[in-house]
């Protein structure tokens, strides 16, 4: 289904596919049924999304950026009691992206996973705010990126636990493989915690392929490019796991593999 410039969507139960193909789009998402959404962005320069996940609903949205034009996106999500939301981004196109994502875990025992996979050969800039207000709410951020020669990645990922969100959890992992000397990848993981009884963690790595890993893989006959490709696939392909439809998942995997193979990884 194509999405027009401004509309309110109330997806039905199950798997739904959408396409955003207009310069400016403003989307209101009312998630009232358990659903899995795949949103292909074929063209959009300004995208606004406001979404609300109702009580006890489980929903996932994978945004697949195919746009040839630079994209500026502003998205905000609110998760009700016992809701379980996944927002994932496949960012492997050749145009720049500037995105701000806010997720508020408002309800008790609400959960959210905010995940991205980026093959970066231009500017990609993400600001992610995942805020826990609900008791026992769990927030997860996972960013995986392969930064190519002319790419520039900037991720500002903030996990915030508000006062009163007892036993809340905020976790994040960000990893970027970079092939250039110097900083063309910046990841700022932040945890802002205003409650005592919580769990929080972050893990981050930026850099070239580990030399010992490379030696081990090469000792089995793979050259440098093949090693880097396998590792890059390991970084990026898991984003397709958010799609349970097998045909679409394997098509997306093929698309990613082709892009990784076609890019200059050295």
């Amino acid at each position, binding site marked *: 289904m194509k999405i027009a410039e401004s509309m309110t969507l109330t997806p039905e139960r199950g798997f739904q596919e959408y396409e955003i193909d207009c310069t400016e789009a403003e989307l209101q998402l009312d998630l009232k049924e358990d659903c899995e959404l795949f949103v292909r962005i074929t063209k959009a320069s300004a995208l606004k999304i406001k979404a609300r996940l109702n009580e006890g609903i489980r929903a996932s949205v994978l945004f697949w950026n195919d746009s040839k034009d630079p994209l500026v996106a502003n998205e905000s999500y609110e998760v009700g009691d016992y809701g379980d939301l996944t927002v994932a981004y496949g960012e492997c196109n050749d145009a720049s992206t500037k995105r701000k994502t806010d997720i508020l875990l408002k309800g008790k025992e609400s959960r959210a996973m905010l995940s991205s996979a980026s093959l970066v050969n231009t500017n990609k800039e993400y600001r992610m705010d995942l805020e826990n207000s609900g008791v026992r709410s769990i927030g997860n951020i996972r960013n995986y990126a392969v930064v190519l020669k002319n790419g520039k990645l900037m991720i500002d990922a903030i996990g915030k636990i508000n006062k009163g969100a007892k036993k809340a959890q905020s976790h994040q992992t960000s990893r970027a493989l970079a092939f250039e000397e110097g900083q063309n990848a910046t990841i700022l993981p932040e945890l802002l915690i205003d409650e005592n009884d919580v769990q929080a963690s972050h893990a981050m790595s930026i850099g070239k392929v580990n030399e010992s890993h490379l030696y081990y893989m*090469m*000792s089995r006959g793979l*050259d440098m490019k*093949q090693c880097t490709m*396998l*590792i890059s696939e390991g970084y990026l392909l898991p984003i397709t796991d958010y799609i349970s439809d097998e045909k679409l998942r394997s098509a997306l995997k093929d698309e990613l593999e082709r892009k990784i193979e076609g890019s200059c990884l050295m």
Partner: protein
Amino acid sequence: MKNLMIKDLHVSAEDKEIIKGIDLEIEEGSSHVLMGPNGNGKSTLLAAIMGDPRFTVTQGSITYDGKDILSMPVNERSIAGIFLGMQYPQEIPGVTNSDFLRAAMNVRRERPVSLFEFIKSMDKAIADMRLSEDLAHRFLNEGFSGGEKKRNEIIQMEMLKPSLAMLDEIDSGLDVDAIKLVADAINRIREESNMSLIIVSHYERFLEYVRPEFTHVLVDGKIVVSGGRDLYEKVDSEGYDWIYKEYGIEPRFEAKNNERVSIGTCAVKDTLKGDMF
């Protein structure tokens, strides 16, 4: 003949010489064990043959099948038929065992291995090592126990079919049953092919199963004595002291005496005292 010829080999790590002149010939199809106290160069020798970037060959030559392997990158040495089962196999998250092995098989074949053939041979290799089927889909060595990692090295060896296998303490971390499994796999491959073998091992039980024909004892970066099976049996029962005596040599012990670093602190204290009085 696919022989490995090592001549006057000197190897350094961070400007410290570890291998101090080794000559060794491994004839195609022969089997050898390297013995010697820890920290005297056994692993370094194998690593230098494979091309481990942590080590630098400063002198001498290594040829395999007549080709100068020191001028080859690591992957080409592997394609030439050399395999190193590592003492500490790396964990590589994100890369599955099966993707990795399939890619490694394909680089040494003209036509890529069919998915069916690959799965069949991988399942067999995994079953031979009594590991669970899901190993193929797990990330390369990630979260594996020490023993699982070692068995995974043998799975890779079985599937890549090297002509020269070097196994660096493959038996450490394995229990008694697994040692037998690994030894059986090595023996089976050697019966089926003409694979040459160099192993580093301290365990008599493992050596009893594999029964290498030649023994070399490395002390302080040199092969001080070579012999047949009787030599590893003698080392096994009597240790190395008789070798040190007979050849008038001293082993190099690993620098594990960290406590002695405190000498520096004492010296500083002494100096201070000197200044004060």
